Structures are given as structure tokens and as C-alpha cells.
């Protein structure tokens, strides 16, 4: 291989082809729960002004997830995983990890939620990731991004 970039176009769920390079690629070990057969993904920014990242399957154009760095809205967020689990993607401590929370944006986007109980934990060095389940009870599957402390936002 002569270039480290390895540019190519991929089909995406969000309606257009996108150019990616090797830098976009991640391997999600054992896939996401419920989607175990899909391990190869590209991380693609939603836009310059947007905090969201697409996690687009390379094998199935219709399969993509919206993700976000959870510390953007939950600064103190530190999920809890066993050393064994972290070592499955060659991490020794959670402080080395890049975290992505999977987001659900419903028809009313004010009610968007992020899954803080089972984030995608990434090792930026080897581009491996895994969806891990935090053993902290305080981290919710549905953390309301626009609410206070993850509670549903107040209606106005």
C-alpha cells in the first residue's frame, strides 16, 4: 500500500455516498448487542457544526447509528468496566478510552436520549471498540441529553 489514507467511497444510511479513509474505520468486537454480525464500521462526523458522529456499517448501508461523545453533556461521566473487559480491546484503563454513546433521536428531537449504560468504548490506537455495559447503576440506557441530570426535559 503506497498511501496510508486508502480513500474510498461508501454507501450510507443517511442518503449519500461518503468518502472515508482508514482513519475512519473501527472494528466493534462482537458487534453491537442485537447486531452481532456487524463488526466493521466507519465513524463519520455529521457536520462541522454538529456534535454527532455517524457510526456507519461497512457491510450494510442501511445500518447506521448516531453517536456522541457523552462528556459533551455529562462532564463527570465515568462508566465502570472490569479490567478483563477493557483488556479485550487492549486497554488497561478507562482513562485511555474514547467513548461514544449511542443516541436515539425520536420524532420530537427534544426528547433525544443517549445510552450511558452501554457506551461504545474505543481504543484509538488499534481502532478496536466494544459495546460495554457499565456496572454503575446510575448510568441510564435513556439519558435525556437536553434534560437536567438525564431526566426528561421540562415541558414549556
Amino acid at each position, binding site marked *: 500500500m503506497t498511501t496510508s489514507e486508502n480513500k474510498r467511497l461508501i454507501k450510507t444510511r443517511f442518503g449519500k455516498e461518503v468518502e472515508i479513509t482508514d482513519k475512519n474505520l473501527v472494528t466493534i468486537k462482537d458487534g453491537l448487542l442485537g447486531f452481532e454480525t456487524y463488526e466493521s464500521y466507519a465513524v463519520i462526523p455529521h457536520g462541522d457544526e*454538529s456534535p454527532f458522529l455517524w457510526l456507519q456499517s461497512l457491510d450494510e448501508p442501511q445500518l447506521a*447509528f448516531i453517536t456522541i461523545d457523552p462528556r459533551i453533556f455529562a462532564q463527570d461521566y465515568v462508566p465502570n468496566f472490569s479490567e478483563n473487559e477493557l483488556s479485550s480491546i487492549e486497554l488497561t484503563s478507562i482513562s485511555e478510552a474514547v467513548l461514544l454513546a449511542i443516541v436515539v433521536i425520536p420524532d420530537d428531537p427534544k426528547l433525544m436520549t443517549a445510552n450511558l449504560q452501554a457506551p461504545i468504548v474505543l481504543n484509538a490506537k488499534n481502532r478496536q471498540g466494544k459495546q460495554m*455495559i457499565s456496572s454503575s447503576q446510575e448510568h441510564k440506557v435513556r439519558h435525556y441529553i*437536553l434534560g437536567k441530570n438525564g431526566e426528561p426535559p421540562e415541558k414549556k
Partner: protein
Amino acid sequence: MLVLARHLNESIIIGDDIEIVVVSVQHDQVKLGIKAPRNISVHRKEVYDEIQRENRLAADARGDLSKGAELLKQRFKDEKNQ
């Protein structure tokens, strides 16, 4: 489904390297100890099911992402101004 009766502190072995021990029994609650290799993840079933459901919901949701990004940006602005 295979059903086995076990007493306190007795265990079962699954394959060569997974052991499940009955640690305590109180009323209708059983505490289990699990010894398994590091590549085997062990979770409460209801938590596992909930996350699976949420992933499916995330894959199917078609809410307006740009609107979501805008709302989040607005929220940070509001917080700064407070």
C-alpha cells in the same frame, strides 16, 4: 432446557472453563458466583435485553438529526448566558 438441582456451595461447569457456584439462597433470591474466562461477558438478562432493544430503536429512529444538533447548541448557549 436442562434442569439441575444444586445445594449451597455446589456448582456446575459449562464447557471446560465456566463455573457457576450457588453462593447463597434466601427466600426467592439466589446468589450465584461465576468464574469465566475474560473473553466471556456475563450480564443480568434483563439488562442485556434492554440494551439490545435500545440498539434496535437507535438503528430505526429517524428523528431530525440537524434539529437535534441545533437544540444541543442552543442549550450550551443558554447555559453560558446563565
